[in-house]
Protein backbone atom coordinates (compact mmCIF):
# COMPACT_ATOMS: atom_id res chain seq x y z
CA UNK A 1 0.00 0.00 0.00
CA UNK A 2 1.34 3.36 1.02
CA UNK A 3 5.03 3.83 0.60
CA UNK A 4 6.89 5.60 3.36
CA UNK A 5 9.61 8.18 3.70
CA UNK A 6 13.18 6.90 4.00
CA UNK A 7 14.54 8.00 7.37
CA UNK A 8 17.12 7.44 10.09
CA UNK A 9 14.86 6.29 12.82
CA UNK A 10 16.93 5.31 15.86
CA UNK A 11 15.36 2.15 17.25
CA UNK A 12 17.67 2.24 20.28
CA UNK A 13 15.75 5.23 21.57
CA UNK A 14 12.47 4.29 23.17
CA UNK A 15 9.66 6.11 24.91
CA UNK A 16 8.99 5.54 28.63
CA UNK A 17 6.02 7.20 30.29
CA UNK A 18 5.43 7.38 34.04
CA UNK A 19 2.15 9.28 34.23
CA UNK A 20 1.98 9.38 38.01
CA UNK A 21 5.01 11.69 37.94
CA UNK A 22 3.07 14.23 35.87
CA UNK A 23 2.66 17.52 37.74
CA UNK A 24 0.25 19.05 35.24
CA UNK A 25 2.54 21.90 34.19
CA UNK A 26 1.57 21.49 30.51
CA UNK A 27 5.09 22.20 29.32
CA UNK A 28 4.73 19.18 27.03
CA UNK A 29 1.56 20.64 25.59
CA UNK A 30 3.31 23.89 24.71
CA UNK A 31 6.22 21.93 23.23
CA UNK A 32 3.89 19.66 21.28
CA UNK A 33 2.31 22.69 19.64
CA UNK A 34 5.76 23.46 18.21
CA UNK A 35 5.93 20.14 16.40
CA UNK A 36 5.80 20.82 12.69
CA UNK A 37 3.74 17.77 11.86
CA UNK A 38 0.68 19.04 13.71
CA UNK A 39 0.90 22.72 12.87
CA UNK A 40 0.49 24.55 16.20
CA UNK A 41 -2.11 22.17 17.61
CA UNK A 42 -0.92 20.19 20.65
CA UNK A 43 -1.71 16.50 20.32
CA UNK A 44 -0.59 15.42 23.79
CA UNK A 45 -3.22 15.17 26.51
CA UNK A 46 -2.81 16.52 30.03
CA UNK A 47 -5.81 16.32 32.29
CA UNK A 48 -6.90 15.90 35.89
CA UNK A 49 -7.62 12.30 36.73
CA UNK A 50 -10.45 13.14 39.13
CA UNK A 51 -10.34 16.77 40.16
CA UNK A 52 -13.11 16.42 42.75
CA UNK A 53 -10.93 14.22 44.90
CA UNK A 54 -7.35 14.74 43.89
CA UNK A 55 -4.95 17.07 42.15
CA UNK A 56 -3.42 14.14 40.27
CA UNK A 57 -2.90 14.86 36.59
CA UNK A 58 -2.02 12.46 33.82
CA UNK A 59 -0.27 12.77 30.52
CA UNK A 60 -1.01 10.66 27.46
CA UNK A 61 0.85 10.29 24.21
CA UNK A 62 -0.04 7.88 21.44
CA UNK A 63 1.21 4.47 22.55
CA UNK A 64 1.81 3.35 18.93
CA UNK A 65 0.05 0.02 19.29
CA UNK A 66 1.30 -3.11 17.57
CA UNK A 67 -2.20 -3.74 16.21
CA UNK A 68 -3.70 -0.25 16.43
CA UNK A 69 -7.42 -0.21 17.19
CA UNK A 70 -7.61 3.26 15.65
CA UNK A 71 -6.40 2.03 12.25
CA UNK A 72 -8.58 -1.05 12.36
CA UNK A 73 -11.79 0.85 12.94
CA UNK A 74 -11.03 3.57 10.42
CA UNK A 75 -13.54 3.23 7.57
CA UNK A 76 -11.37 5.36 5.29
CA UNK A 77 -8.00 3.54 5.62
CA UNK A 78 -6.65 6.88 6.77
CA UNK A 79 -4.36 5.64 9.55
CA UNK A 80 -1.17 3.79 8.71
CA UNK A 81 1.54 2.17 10.78
CA UNK A 82 5.01 2.32 9.26
CA UNK A 83 7.86 -0.14 9.46
CA UNK A 84 9.34 1.74 12.44
CA UNK A 85 6.17 0.97 14.36
CA UNK A 86 4.99 4.58 14.29
CA UNK A 87 1.25 4.93 13.85
CA UNK A 88 0.72 8.07 11.80
CA UNK A 89 -1.85 10.80 12.07
CA UNK A 90 -4.79 10.53 9.66
CA UNK A 91 -4.06 10.92 5.98
CA UNK A 92 -5.55 14.34 5.32
CA UNK A 93 -7.12 13.46 2.00
CA UNK A 94 -8.71 10.22 3.22
CA UNK A 95 -9.99 10.95 6.72
CA UNK A 96 -13.74 11.59 6.63
CA UNK A 97 -13.86 12.78 10.24
CA UNK A 98 -16.09 9.99 11.52
CA UNK A 99 -14.40 9.84 14.97
CA UNK A 100 -14.35 6.04 15.03
CA UNK A 101 -10.68 6.16 15.98
CA UNK A 102 -11.25 8.80 18.66
CA UNK A 103 -13.63 6.51 20.42
CA UNK A 104 -12.03 3.15 19.77
CA UNK A 105 -8.50 4.02 20.86
CA UNK A 106 -8.20 2.35 24.28
CA UNK A 107 -5.84 5.10 25.43
CA UNK A 108 -8.06 8.04 24.44
CA UNK A 109 -5.51 9.56 22.10
CA UNK A 110 -6.83 10.78 18.71
CA UNK A 111 -8.37 14.24 18.52
CA UNK A 112 -11.07 15.22 16.10
CA UNK A 113 -10.62 18.75 14.80
CA UNK A 114 -14.29 19.51 14.32
CA UNK A 115 -14.09 22.49 11.94
CA UNK A 116 -11.56 20.75 9.72
CA UNK A 117 -13.46 17.43 9.82
CA UNK A 118 -10.13 15.77 10.36
CA UNK A 119 -8.61 13.53 12.99
CA UNK A 120 -5.16 14.42 14.22
CA UNK A 121 -3.00 12.53 16.66
CA UNK A 122 0.47 12.22 18.08
CA UNK A 123 2.85 10.75 15.52
CA UNK A 124 5.85 10.61 17.84
CA UNK A 125 7.10 13.93 16.42
CA UNK A 126 7.90 12.19 13.17
CA UNK A 127 9.77 15.23 11.88
CA UNK A 128 12.18 14.82 14.81
CA UNK A 129 12.30 11.11 15.65
CA UNK A 130 12.77 10.22 12.00
CA UNK A 131 16.12 12.00 12.11
CA UNK A 132 17.20 10.59 15.48
CA UNK A 133 15.97 13.44 17.68
CA UNK A 134 13.69 13.13 20.71
CA UNK A 135 10.01 14.04 20.59
CA UNK A 136 9.32 17.61 21.74
CA UNK A 137 7.37 16.63 24.88
CA UNK A 138 10.12 14.39 26.25
CA UNK A 139 12.72 17.15 25.88
CA UNK A 140 10.79 19.54 28.14
CA UNK A 141 9.09 17.37 30.78
CA UNK A 142 10.58 18.57 34.10
CA UNK A 143 9.31 15.69 36.23
CA UNK A 144 10.49 12.69 34.24
CA UNK A 145 6.94 11.63 33.39
CA UNK A 146 7.97 11.57 29.73
CA UNK A 147 11.34 10.06 28.95
CA UNK A 148 12.78 9.22 25.56
CA UNK A 149 16.15 7.52 25.37
CA UNK A 150 18.04 4.25 25.53
CA UNK A 151 16.58 1.56 27.76
CA UNK A 152 19.80 1.11 29.80
CA UNK A 153 19.66 4.74 30.76
CA UNK A 154 16.15 4.63 32.18
CA UNK A 155 16.89 1.32 33.88
CA UNK A 156 19.85 2.96 35.63
CA UNK A 157 17.81 5.99 36.63
CA UNK A 158 14.80 4.04 37.86
CA UNK A 159 16.09 0.81 39.42
CA UNK A 160 12.75 0.12 41.13
CA UNK A 161 10.72 0.37 37.94
CA UNK A 162 10.12 -1.90 34.98
CA UNK A 163 8.92 -0.67 31.62
CA UNK A 164 5.77 -2.47 30.58
CA UNK A 165 4.08 -2.44 27.19
CA UNK A 166 1.23 -4.88 27.67
CA UNK A 167 -2.12 -3.48 28.71
CA UNK A 168 -5.36 -5.21 29.65
CA UNK A 169 -8.68 -3.54 29.05
CA UNK A 170 -11.25 -6.04 30.18
CA UNK A 171 -10.85 -8.99 27.83
CA UNK A 172 -8.55 -7.16 25.46
CA UNK A 173 -4.76 -7.23 25.57
CA UNK A 174 -2.95 -4.41 23.79
CA UNK A 175 0.78 -4.34 23.08
CA UNK A 176 2.46 -1.05 22.33
CA UNK A 177 5.70 0.50 21.15
CA UNK A 178 5.65 3.03 24.00
CA UNK A 179 6.28 1.81 27.55
CA UNK A 180 4.70 2.71 30.86
CA UNK A 181 6.86 2.56 33.99
CA UNK A 182 5.53 0.06 36.52
CA UNK A 183 6.78 -1.50 39.79
CA UNK A 184 9.56 -4.05 39.39
CA UNK A 185 8.29 -7.48 38.51
CA UNK A 186 5.24 -6.19 36.62
CA UNK A 187 4.57 -7.70 33.23
CA UNK A 188 1.40 -5.84 32.36
CA UNK A 189 -0.86 -3.01 33.39
CA UNK A 190 -4.46 -4.03 33.96
CA UNK A 191 -6.61 -0.95 33.42
CA UNK A 192 -10.00 -2.49 34.17
Amino acid at each position, binding site marked *: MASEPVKNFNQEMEFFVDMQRCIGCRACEAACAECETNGEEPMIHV*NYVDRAHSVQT*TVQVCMHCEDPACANVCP*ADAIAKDSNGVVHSANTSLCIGCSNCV*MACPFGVPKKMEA*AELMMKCNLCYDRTSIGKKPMCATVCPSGALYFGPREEIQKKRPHSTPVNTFK*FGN*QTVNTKVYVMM*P*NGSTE*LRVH
Partner: protein
Amino acid sequence: MFRIFYSLNRKALINATIAMLLAIALVYVGSRDLQNFDAALIAYLFGTIFAVFGIMYRYSVWLQRPPTRLYWRRTWKFVFSKRFFPYLGFVIQQFVKNIMFQRFIYPRGRSRWWGHFLLATGCMLAFMVTIPLTFGWIHFTLQPGTLDIYEAHVFGFHVAEFELGGFIAFNAFHILNWCSLLVIVGAVLMMRRRIKNGGLIATQTFQDDWMPLILLQAISVTGLGLTFDYSFMQGKTFEFMSVTHAITVILFLVWIPFGKFFHIFQRPAQLGTNVYRKEGARLGMAVCPHTGHEFATQLHVNDLKKVTKELDFNFDLEGGGSHLDYSPEGKRAALAKAQFAAREQQGQFFG
Protein backbone atom coordinates in the same frame (compact mmCIF):
# COMPACT_ATOMS: atom_id res chain seq x y z
CA MET B 1 -2.49 -5.65 9.98
CA PHE B 2 -5.12 -3.93 7.93
CA ARG B 3 -7.03 -7.06 7.06
CA ILE B 4 -7.26 -5.77 3.52
CA PHE B 5 -7.57 -8.47 0.95
CA TYR B 6 -4.45 -8.35 -1.07
CA SER B 7 -5.27 -11.48 -2.97
CA LEU B 8 -7.91 -11.29 -5.64
CA ASN B 9 -11.31 -10.59 -4.25
CA ARG B 10 -14.15 -12.44 -5.96
CA LYS B 11 -16.96 -10.12 -5.04
CA ALA B 12 -14.97 -7.09 -6.06
CA LEU B 13 -13.97 -8.75 -9.30
CA ILE B 14 -17.61 -9.38 -10.18
CA ASN B 15 -18.65 -5.83 -9.28
CA ALA B 16 -15.78 -4.38 -11.25
CA THR B 17 -16.54 -6.52 -14.29
CA ILE B 18 -20.19 -5.52 -14.21
CA ALA B 19 -19.27 -1.86 -13.93
CA MET B 20 -16.86 -2.19 -16.82
CA LEU B 21 -19.40 -3.94 -19.04
CA LEU B 22 -21.97 -1.33 -18.11
CA ALA B 23 -19.57 1.42 -19.10
CA ILE B 24 -18.91 -0.27 -22.44
CA ALA B 25 -22.63 -0.70 -23.00
CA LEU B 26 -23.12 2.98 -22.25
CA VAL B 27 -20.50 3.84 -24.82
CA TYR B 28 -22.34 1.79 -27.44
CA VAL B 29 -25.75 3.15 -26.61
CA GLY B 30 -24.66 6.71 -25.96
CA SER B 31 -22.69 6.96 -29.17
CA ARG B 32 -25.43 5.34 -31.22
CA ASP B 33 -23.52 2.15 -31.91
CA LEU B 34 -20.22 3.97 -32.15
CA GLN B 35 -21.29 6.13 -35.09
CA ASN B 36 -20.65 9.26 -33.01
CA PHE B 37 -17.53 7.87 -31.40
CA ASP B 38 -14.38 9.85 -32.05
CA ALA B 39 -11.74 7.29 -32.95
CA ALA B 40 -8.94 9.69 -32.05
CA LEU B 41 -9.97 9.24 -28.44
CA ILE B 42 -9.68 5.45 -28.42
CA ALA B 43 -6.67 5.43 -26.06
CA TYR B 44 -8.49 7.68 -23.65
CA LEU B 45 -11.48 5.38 -23.81
CA PHE B 46 -9.43 2.36 -22.87
CA GLY B 47 -7.90 4.29 -19.98
CA THR B 48 -11.30 5.34 -18.73
CA ILE B 49 -12.74 1.86 -19.00
CA PHE B 50 -9.81 0.49 -17.06
CA ALA B 51 -10.27 3.20 -14.44
CA VAL B 52 -13.94 2.25 -14.08
CA PHE B 53 -12.90 -1.34 -13.51
CA GLY B 54 -10.17 -0.42 -11.03
CA ILE B 55 -12.22 2.08 -9.10
CA MET B 56 -15.09 -0.34 -8.74
CA TYR B 57 -12.74 -3.07 -7.67
CA ARG B 58 -11.09 -1.00 -5.00
CA TYR B 59 -14.38 0.45 -3.89
CA SER B 60 -15.83 -3.01 -3.42
CA VAL B 61 -12.82 -4.20 -1.47
CA TRP B 62 -13.00 -1.09 0.60
CA LEU B 63 -16.66 -1.62 1.41
CA GLN B 64 -15.92 -5.08 2.74
CA ARG B 65 -13.95 -3.72 5.69
CA PRO B 66 -16.17 -4.01 8.76
CA PRO B 67 -16.25 -0.30 9.74
CA THR B 68 -16.85 0.80 6.16
CA ARG B 69 -19.49 -1.84 5.60
CA LEU B 70 -21.27 -0.72 8.74
CA TYR B 71 -21.39 2.89 7.61
CA TRP B 72 -22.39 1.85 4.12
CA ARG B 73 -25.29 -0.25 5.34
CA ARG B 74 -26.41 2.28 7.92
CA THR B 75 -26.39 5.01 5.28
CA TRP B 76 -28.48 3.18 2.69
CA LYS B 77 -30.90 1.79 5.21
CA PHE B 78 -31.38 5.29 6.49
CA VAL B 79 -31.70 6.81 3.04
CA PHE B 80 -34.54 4.45 2.20
CA SER B 81 -36.33 4.97 5.50
CA LYS B 82 -38.98 7.61 6.00
CA ARG B 83 -36.89 9.38 8.63
CA PHE B 84 -34.51 10.42 5.88
CA PHE B 85 -36.78 13.02 4.34
CA PRO B 86 -36.10 15.80 6.91
CA TYR B 87 -32.38 15.36 6.21
CA LEU B 88 -32.64 15.96 2.49
CA GLY B 89 -31.92 19.67 2.85
CA PHE B 90 -29.02 18.94 5.15
CA VAL B 91 -27.50 16.47 2.70
CA ILE B 92 -27.79 18.88 -0.20
CA GLN B 93 -26.24 21.66 1.85
CA GLN B 94 -23.43 19.34 2.94
CA PHE B 95 -22.86 18.27 -0.64
CA VAL B 96 -22.47 21.82 -1.86
CA LYS B 97 -20.37 22.89 1.10
CA ASN B 98 -18.15 19.88 1.58
CA ILE B 99 -17.94 18.18 -1.80
CA MET B 100 -18.29 21.00 -4.29
CA PHE B 101 -16.49 23.64 -2.26
CA GLN B 102 -14.51 21.46 0.20
CA ARG B 103 -15.19 24.13 2.80
CA PHE B 104 -13.79 21.99 5.64
CA ILE B 105 -10.28 22.36 4.21
CA TYR B 106 -10.40 26.11 4.88
CA PRO B 107 -9.86 25.78 8.67
CA ARG B 108 -6.74 23.73 7.88
CA GLY B 109 -5.23 26.69 6.08
CA ARG B 110 -6.24 29.36 3.63
CA SER B 111 -3.86 28.60 0.79
CA ARG B 112 -4.45 24.93 1.46
CA TRP B 113 -8.12 25.44 0.64
CA TRP B 114 -7.49 27.70 -2.36
CA GLY B 115 -4.98 25.24 -3.74
CA HIS B 116 -7.25 22.28 -3.41
CA PHE B 117 -10.42 24.08 -4.48
CA LEU B 118 -8.77 25.25 -7.68
CA LEU B 119 -7.30 21.92 -8.62
CA ALA B 120 -10.39 19.94 -7.69
CA THR B 121 -12.74 22.32 -9.50
CA GLY B 122 -10.55 22.33 -12.58
CA CYS B 123 -10.38 18.59 -12.54
CA MET B 124 -14.05 17.93 -11.94
CA LEU B 125 -15.13 20.40 -14.63
CA ALA B 126 -12.74 18.74 -17.02
CA PHE B 127 -14.17 15.32 -16.22
CA MET B 128 -17.65 16.59 -16.96
CA VAL B 129 -16.52 17.56 -20.43
CA THR B 130 -14.06 14.84 -21.31
CA ILE B 131 -15.90 11.75 -20.15
CA PRO B 132 -18.99 12.40 -22.30
CA LEU B 133 -16.69 13.30 -25.19
CA THR B 134 -14.62 10.14 -24.86
CA PHE B 135 -17.69 7.98 -24.52
CA GLY B 136 -19.09 9.55 -27.63
CA TRP B 137 -22.05 10.92 -25.72
CA ILE B 138 -21.46 14.41 -26.99
CA HIS B 139 -20.30 15.38 -30.41
CA PHE B 140 -20.35 18.44 -32.58
CA THR B 141 -21.22 18.79 -36.25
CA LEU B 142 -21.38 21.64 -38.68
CA GLN B 143 -24.94 22.54 -39.55
CA PRO B 144 -25.61 21.31 -43.08
CA GLY B 145 -25.44 24.12 -45.60
CA THR B 146 -23.56 26.53 -43.32
CA LEU B 147 -19.93 27.12 -42.52
CA ASP B 148 -20.12 28.80 -39.16
CA ILE B 149 -22.99 27.23 -37.21
CA TYR B 150 -22.09 24.34 -34.96
CA GLU B 151 -24.55 21.81 -33.57
CA ALA B 152 -24.06 19.99 -30.31
CA HIS B 153 -25.50 16.48 -29.95
CA VAL B 154 -25.96 14.61 -26.70
CA PHE B 155 -26.58 10.87 -27.01
CA GLY B 156 -27.11 11.58 -30.67
CA PHE B 157 -29.87 14.09 -30.06
CA HIS B 158 -29.48 17.61 -31.32
CA VAL B 159 -29.55 19.90 -28.27
CA ALA B 160 -28.00 23.23 -29.17
CA GLU B 161 -26.37 25.21 -31.89
CA PHE B 162 -24.00 28.12 -31.77
CA GLU B 163 -22.09 30.33 -34.06
CA LEU B 164 -18.44 29.69 -34.65
CA GLY B 165 -16.33 32.43 -33.14
CA GLY B 166 -19.16 33.45 -30.79
CA PHE B 167 -18.97 33.67 -27.03
CA ILE B 168 -20.39 30.19 -26.43
CA ALA B 169 -18.16 28.59 -28.98
CA PHE B 170 -15.12 30.27 -27.57
CA ASN B 171 -15.82 28.98 -24.07
CA ALA B 172 -17.01 25.57 -25.20
CA PHE B 173 -13.81 24.95 -27.11
CA HIS B 174 -11.63 26.47 -24.43
CA ILE B 175 -13.23 25.12 -21.29
CA LEU B 176 -10.45 22.57 -20.91
CA ASN B 177 -7.92 25.35 -21.04
CA TRP B 178 -9.65 27.16 -18.22
CA CYS B 179 -9.66 23.92 -16.28
CA SER B 180 -5.96 23.48 -16.89
CA LEU B 181 -5.25 26.94 -15.58
CA LEU B 182 -7.20 26.26 -12.39
CA VAL B 183 -5.37 22.98 -11.89
CA ILE B 184 -1.97 24.54 -12.52
CA VAL B 185 -2.51 27.33 -10.00
CA GLY B 186 -3.98 24.91 -7.47
CA ALA B 187 -1.22 22.37 -7.83
CA VAL B 188 1.44 25.09 -7.54
CA LEU B 189 -0.12 26.21 -4.25
CA MET B 190 -0.11 22.62 -3.02
CA MET B 191 3.47 22.07 -4.16
CA ARG B 192 4.56 25.22 -2.37
CA ARG B 193 3.19 23.76 0.87
CA ARG B 194 5.08 20.55 0.31
CA ILE B 195 8.32 22.45 -0.16
CA LYS B 196 7.93 24.81 2.78
CA ASN B 197 6.11 22.90 5.52
CA GLY B 198 8.49 20.98 7.79
CA GLY B 199 5.81 18.53 8.89
CA LEU B 200 4.94 17.64 5.31
CA ILE B 201 8.57 17.34 4.35
CA ALA B 202 9.07 14.80 7.14
CA THR B 203 6.08 12.65 6.25
CA GLN B 204 5.67 12.90 2.48
CA THR B 205 6.79 10.43 -0.11
CA PHE B 206 7.43 10.94 -3.77
CA GLN B 207 5.05 8.25 -4.88
CA ASP B 208 2.08 9.15 -2.69
CA ASP B 209 2.38 12.89 -2.44
CA TRP B 210 4.49 14.37 -5.24
CA MET B 211 3.50 12.11 -8.11
CA PRO B 212 -0.17 13.18 -8.05
CA LEU B 213 0.77 16.85 -8.15
CA ILE B 214 3.37 16.36 -10.87
CA LEU B 215 0.93 14.32 -12.91
CA LEU B 216 -1.73 17.01 -12.65
CA GLN B 217 0.78 19.64 -13.72
CA ALA B 218 1.90 17.51 -16.65
CA ILE B 219 -1.65 16.93 -17.83
CA SER B 220 -2.56 20.59 -17.58
CA VAL B 221 0.61 21.95 -19.12
CA THR B 222 0.51 19.60 -22.09
CA GLY B 223 -3.20 20.25 -22.45
CA LEU B 224 -2.61 23.97 -22.61
CA GLY B 225 0.35 23.22 -24.85
CA LEU B 226 -1.97 21.72 -27.46
CA THR B 227 -3.93 24.94 -27.77
CA PHE B 228 -0.82 27.04 -27.61
CA ASP B 229 0.73 24.97 -30.32
CA TYR B 230 -2.08 25.23 -32.90
CA SER B 231 -2.79 28.87 -32.02
CA PHE B 232 0.71 30.21 -32.09
CA MET B 233 3.19 27.61 -33.27
CA GLN B 234 1.47 26.23 -36.34
CA GLY B 235 1.49 22.74 -34.90
CA LYS B 236 5.24 22.36 -34.67
CA THR B 237 5.07 20.58 -31.32
CA PHE B 238 1.65 19.03 -31.80
CA GLU B 239 2.94 15.49 -32.01
CA PHE B 240 4.91 15.81 -28.78
CA MET B 241 2.13 17.60 -26.89
CA SER B 242 -0.61 15.24 -27.93
CA VAL B 243 1.42 12.14 -27.16
CA THR B 244 2.58 13.34 -23.72
CA HIS B 245 -0.88 14.61 -22.93
CA ALA B 246 -2.42 11.28 -23.79
CA ILE B 247 0.20 9.40 -21.82
CA THR B 248 -0.19 11.53 -18.70
CA VAL B 249 -3.98 11.45 -18.80
CA ILE B 250 -4.01 7.71 -19.25
CA LEU B 251 -1.51 7.31 -16.42
CA PHE B 252 -3.78 9.44 -14.28
CA LEU B 253 -6.84 7.38 -15.14
CA VAL B 254 -5.19 4.04 -14.66
CA TRP B 255 -3.66 5.15 -11.40
CA ILE B 256 -6.85 6.49 -9.78
CA PRO B 257 -7.73 3.26 -8.02
CA PHE B 258 -4.26 2.82 -6.55
CA GLY B 259 -3.15 6.19 -5.28
CA LYS B 260 -4.18 9.42 -3.75
CA PHE B 261 -6.82 10.19 -6.36
CA PHE B 262 -9.02 7.44 -5.01
CA HIS B 263 -10.08 9.93 -2.34
CA ILE B 264 -12.28 11.60 -4.94
CA PHE B 265 -14.51 8.53 -4.77
CA GLN B 266 -14.13 7.99 -1.05
CA ARG B 267 -15.01 11.51 0.07
CA PRO B 268 -18.80 11.28 -0.31
CA ALA B 269 -18.66 8.98 2.74
CA GLN B 270 -18.10 12.17 4.70
CA LEU B 271 -21.74 13.11 4.04
CA GLY B 272 -22.78 9.78 5.46
CA THR B 273 -20.87 10.31 8.69
CA ASN B 274 -22.38 13.75 9.20
CA VAL B 275 -25.90 12.44 8.76
CA TYR B 276 -25.06 9.50 11.02
CA ARG B 277 -23.95 11.84 13.76
CA LYS B 278 -26.99 14.05 13.45
CA GLU B 279 -29.40 11.17 13.47
CA GLY B 280 -27.47 9.57 16.36
CA ALA B 281 -27.72 12.75 18.42
CA ARG B 282 -31.46 12.71 17.89
CA LEU B 283 -31.60 9.16 19.25
CA GLY B 284 -29.55 10.03 22.33
CA MET B 285 -26.06 10.75 23.60
CA ALA B 286 -23.73 8.47 25.55
CA VAL B 287 -22.60 9.70 28.97
CA CYS B 288 -19.12 8.78 30.20
CA PRO B 289 -19.26 6.92 33.52
CA HIS B 290 -16.08 8.70 34.60
CA THR B 291 -16.60 12.34 33.64
CA GLY B 292 -20.38 12.31 33.76
CA HIS B 293 -20.51 14.26 30.49
CA GLU B 294 -21.95 13.43 27.09
CA PHE B 295 -19.21 12.63 24.61
CA ALA B 296 -20.65 10.82 21.58
CA THR B 297 -23.89 9.37 20.30
CA GLN B 298 -25.03 6.16 21.90
CA LEU B 299 -25.63 4.75 18.40
CA HIS B 300 -21.96 5.30 17.59
CA VAL B 301 -20.76 3.68 20.83
CA ASN B 302 -22.99 0.65 20.27
CA ASP B 303 -21.93 0.30 16.64
CA LEU B 304 -18.27 0.53 17.59
CA LYS B 305 -18.67 -2.27 20.10
CA LYS B 306 -19.97 -4.44 17.25
CA VAL B 307 -17.30 -3.36 14.79
CA THR B 308 -14.43 -3.89 17.20
CA LYS B 309 -15.68 -7.41 17.88
CA GLU B 310 -15.78 -8.15 14.16
CA LEU B 311 -12.19 -6.94 14.03
CA ASP B 312 -11.19 -9.31 16.85
CA PHE B 313 -11.03 -6.72 19.57
CA ASN B 314 -12.95 -7.33 22.76
CA PHE B 315 -13.12 -4.46 25.18
CA ASP B 316 -15.86 -6.04 27.33
CA LEU B 317 -15.24 -5.69 31.05
CA GLU B 318 -15.60 -8.56 33.46
CA GLY B 319 -18.26 -6.90 35.56
CA GLY B 320 -20.32 -5.97 32.48
CA GLY B 321 -20.01 -2.86 30.38
CA SER B 322 -17.13 -2.08 28.07
CA HIS B 323 -14.00 0.04 27.99
CA LEU B 324 -15.66 1.71 25.01
CA ASP B 325 -18.36 3.14 27.30
CA TYR B 326 -15.73 5.57 28.54
CA SER B 327 -14.99 8.89 26.86
CA PRO B 328 -11.40 9.49 25.74
CA GLU B 329 -10.78 11.48 28.91
CA GLY B 330 -12.36 8.73 31.00
CA LYS B 331 -10.10 6.17 29.32
CA ARG B 332 -6.99 8.21 30.07
CA ALA B 333 -8.07 8.67 33.68
CA ALA B 334 -8.73 4.93 34.05
CA LEU B 335 -5.23 4.13 32.88
CA ALA B 336 -3.70 6.76 35.15
CA LYS B 337 -5.63 5.48 38.15
CA ALA B 338 -4.59 1.90 37.48
CA GLN B 339 -0.92 2.88 37.13
CA PHE B 340 -1.08 5.01 40.26
CA ALA B 341 -2.68 2.15 42.19
CA ALA B 342 0.07 -0.24 41.12
CA ARG B 343 2.73 2.24 42.21
CA GLU B 344 0.95 2.87 45.48
CA GLN B 345 0.77 -0.84 46.18
CA GLN B 346 4.48 -1.13 45.61
CA GLY B 347 4.95 1.77 48.02
CA GLN B 348 7.53 3.38 45.78
CA PHE B 349 6.42 6.13 43.48
CA PHE B 350 9.84 7.23 42.35
CA GLY B 351 12.98 5.48 41.28
